[in-house]
Each structure stands twice: as structure tokens, then as C-alpha cells.
């Protein structure tokens, strides 16, 4: 048993064991609060209903807005809603609370990277959300609102959503790391969430923004969290007058994930030196 403990194969097995244990523990922990999560079954469709009425009224005076038809814009909002259930993340809040309360010190003693642990927690949390939030709302949209929620290409849609899932985690985790400098990061968190949702296309399709804004948004990483997975799901990508093939966009998304991972590594390297905790 001890002889092979440092072999790469054993390290991988160990990481898989950690992943399974953390995912299961988080799943069970949150399953106790599944009714909290199930609020989405009400909130998602009601919020969506408002959008349906707004856009129906808007399109009653014309056929297209910014090149999008009514059907396309309604589908966009439907897809955004369900993708958000899959990629939702609270790593920023969790980490800043651990730092603020000093409980983070216990993680420095554990033989596991906190980032990896937090990622596994997210997997467990979203696994629960899959049947409590995603599937019921998906069926509601499909059967009640009659929205086409079948991805244009399942393979690319799954890859893009997975990359969006990882990118959302890394970005939020980096915000959590700022807790090493700021201790209480509530304001910064809110500011970031606001900026992220606005620039990721959660509020409106990014093509509705004025031209110069679209050009800025094209070079920001936020579009890769929601806008890109949504457009990949629908089967076409366009922003700032630039249309790109789906594999190319997904490749860019993968690039954004790698860059964000390097940013996380750098922030962690600088931030961890500042942490002090007593007792906790």
C-alpha cells in the first residue's frame, strides 16, 4: 500500500477519491435545503414570463430588433436561464467568508488544495441543481412556453457549457481571493456580479448594445461565461459584427479558461502570503 504512494497513478486516484467524497458531502449537505433551491422553479419562469410580454410588445411594432427575431430573442432568454442553473457559482462568497472568519486556517492544514476542494463543492451543488432546478425549469420552458431547447450541436454545446462552468468558478474564486487583502469583499463581490452579468449577456443579448460597446465586450472574458455557451447552444455566434464558426469560438473560450487559471495562480501566490488566522 505504502510502496506506490507517490506514483502519478495513485495521485490521480487520490484526487478522484477527494472529488467523490466532496461532491457527495456537498450534495447531501445541500439536499437538506432543496426546498430553497426549488424556488427557482417559480422565480425562473415568472421572470421569463415578464421578458416574454416585454418582447412580444416590442415586436408587435416591428419584425426584428438588432437583427434578432422574436423567436430568437425568446429562445435566447430561455437558454440563458437554464445555462445559468448549470453554471451558478458561489465560490467567491464561500472563500471570503472563510478568510473573514479565520476558518480558512483549517484548510491550510489539510492535504488538499482549497481551490480543488471548492471546485468539487461546486460540482456537488450543481449536481443537486440538475434535478431540483434545471430539469423542472427545462421541462416548463419546453412544454409550457414551447421554446426550442434542443442544442444545435450537442457536442459543442456540452463543451461550451463545461468551459463556462469552469470559467465562472475561476472568476468567482479570484474575487474570493481578494478577501486576503480586503477581508470583507461584499461590495466588490456585488460590483463584480453586476459587471459580470451585464457583460456576459444575462440581462440582454450583447448584440443589443451599441456598436462601440459590443467591440469592448468582444475583448472582455465575460462573454465566455454565458453569452458564448448560449450562442453555441443556439448554433450561431455573432458579436460586434463578427461572426465566427462554433469550434473557433469554443477554442477562444478554452483560451479564456487557461488565462483565467493563470490569473488565479498568480493571485493565490500573492494573496496567501497575507493570510493570518488565530485559533479559528
Amino acid at each position, binding site marked *: 500500500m505504502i510502496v506506490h504512494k507517490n506514483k502519478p497513478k495513485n495521485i490521480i486516484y487520490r484526487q478522484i477519491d477527494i472529488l467523490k467524497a466532496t461532491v457527495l458531502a456537498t450534495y447531501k449537505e445541500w439536499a437538506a435545503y432543496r426546498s*430553497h433551491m426549488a*424556488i427557482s422553479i417559480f422565480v425562473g419562469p415568472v421572470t421569463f414570463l415578464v421578458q416574454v410580454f*416585454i418582447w412580444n410588445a416590442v415586436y408587435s411594432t416591428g419584425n426584428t430588433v438588432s437583427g434578432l427575431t422574436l423567436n430568437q430573442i425568446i429562445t435566447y432568454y430561455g437558454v440563458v436561464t437554464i445555462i445559468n442553473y448549470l453554471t451558478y457559482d458561489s465560490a467567491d462568497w464561500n472563500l471570503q467568508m472563510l478568510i473573514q472568519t479565520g476558518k480558512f486556517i483549517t484548510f491550510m492544514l489539510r492535504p488538499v488544495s482549497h481551490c480543488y476542494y471548492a471546485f468539487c463543492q461546486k460540482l456537488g451543488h450543481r449536481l443537486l441543481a440538475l434535478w431540483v432546478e434545471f430539469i423542472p425549469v427545462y421541462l416548463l420552458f419546453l412544454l409550457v412556453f414551447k421554446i426550442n431547447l434542443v442544442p444545435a450541436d450537442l457536442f459543442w454545446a456540452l463543451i461550451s457549457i463545461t468551459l463556462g462552468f469552469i470559467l465562472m468558478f475561476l472568476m468567482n474564486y479570484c474575487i474570493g481571493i481578494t478577501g486576503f487583502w480586503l477581508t470583507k469583499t461584499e461590495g466588490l463581490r456585488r460590483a463584480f456580479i453586476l459587471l459580470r452579468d451585464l457583460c456576459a449577456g444575462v440581462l440582454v443579448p450583447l448584440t443589443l448594445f451599441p456598436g462601440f460597446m459590443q467591440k469592448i465586450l468582444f475583448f472582455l472574458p465575460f462573454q465566455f461565461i454565458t453569452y458564448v455557451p448560449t450562442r453555441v447552444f443556439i448554433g450561431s455566434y455573432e458579436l460586434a459584427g463578427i461572426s465566427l464558426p462554433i469550434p473557433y469560438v469554443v477554442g477562444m473560450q478554452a483560451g479564456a479558461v487557461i488565462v483565467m487559471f493563470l490569473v488565479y495562480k498568480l493571485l493565490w501566490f500573492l494573496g496567501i502570503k497575507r493570510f493570518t488566522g488565530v485559533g479559528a
Partner: protein
Amino acid sequence: MISAIKMHLQGIKTGLAVRMAYRADFIISAFIMLISEFFGPLLTYLIYNNEASLPGWSMYEVLLIQGVFLLSKGISFPFFFGIVWNTLDRVQNGTFDLLLIKPRSVLQMVIVTGFDSEDLGKLIGGLALTGIALYRLPRPGLSEWVAFIGLFVISLVVMFGFALILAGLGIVWIGNYRVYEIFSSIANFGMYPASIFSKSLQTVITSVIPVAMLGFIPASALLGKPYENTLYAVIISFMFLFASLLFWNTTLKKYTSSGG
């Protein structure tokens, strides 16, 4: 009455003092509260900027509805809507018991200790948006202003009703902060002209859950084109408050504690 006002002022003072321990975070949070409320108006701006519109309504008329809605939130959220998070937090931590043994009504105590200074950002945002919209619209007459003020006070009544329901839910649904999302999703209907919704939905938002009173109805009065069922909505708003109080008292009686 004077002692009640003194108590509320003391609550505000304490709330501000506590929040000032992290001044920079407070300022950022208040600013973000202001900005986050501009998602609705931004959507309106983008719609009109793309040469589309909500039929029968100009951009500034829609922005006025949203400004009034924000103004109503800007007053209610700092000064009494805090009963929601205050109740949720106290019930979850077990400190709700402390309010039960005070020589004042539980509701008053929960309002006083629930002052939320960060939400003052909403008030500033509401004032700014309403001011900008009014500047671009024809000046309302005295009668419009009087009708608006009366209806705006009733919008606060509806807000209070919502706060009571959500706080009541917080007693029986421990630690569920997502009740705010329930409110936000429903309240969205009050941010737009009722005419864009179907007839049945218009009936719901004026005669069942009077969310139209939160923004649309007072703003319509100020614009000089009052909603046809305004009087009916006013009566329903008071009935809504009564039902909310009943709900709050019922859930309060159901409160059980393990001692904190």
C-alpha cells in the same frame, strides 16, 4: 408616538454606526445597490435605442414608471423592508427570541433593528431616475401631483405588505434568503406599463397581488393618464396589507425556538 419615533431614529443611528465599521465596503455596497437597480431602465434604454418601443409609451414615460418603482423601493428597503433579512437572520441564529421579550411589539422591534443603510443607494437612484424622466416629460399639474403622492403612499403600503409576507415566510422557512427572489420576480410586473400584459395578467397585478401599484399606477397618475382600475387597485392594496398582517401574525404564533 414620540417614543416610537425616537426608537426608530436610534435604530437608524445604530444601523449606520455598525455599517460604518467597514466604511469603504459600505460605500461600494450602497453604490452597487444603486447601479444594480438600473438593469430594468438599461433594458428600456436598449430597446428604444434599437429603434423599437413598447406600444403607446415613450422611453421617458417607461423610465418614469421604473423611477417611481425604484423610489418606492428606495424608501421601503432601508426603512422597513429590512424586516425580511432581520427576521430570517434572527430566526436562523436563534436571536429572534430576544425581540419577543422586549417591552414593544415584535413587528416594531424587527423594523427598528432592521434598518438597512446600504439600500439608501436605491433611494438616490430612484430620485435621479424620476428626476431625469420628469425633466424630459411635460410638467405635471397640481392635481396629477396630488394623485401621485396619494398613490405613492399606497405603493409603500403594498411594499410593507410584501415585507410582512416575506418576513412571515422567514419564520417558517428557516434561513431561506431566496424569498427576496420571489419578490423581485413578481415585482417586475410593476416596472412596466400594464398594457403590455394580457388582460388576465392585468387583473392579477391590480386585483389579486397589486404589484402594478408599485410603479405603474402612481406613475400613470403623474403622467396624466391614470389607469382605469386605479380605485379598485387602491382598495385591493389595503386588503393586501390586511392579509399580510394576518399572515405575519399567524406565522409569528407558529414560531418555535430552541433557545439560540
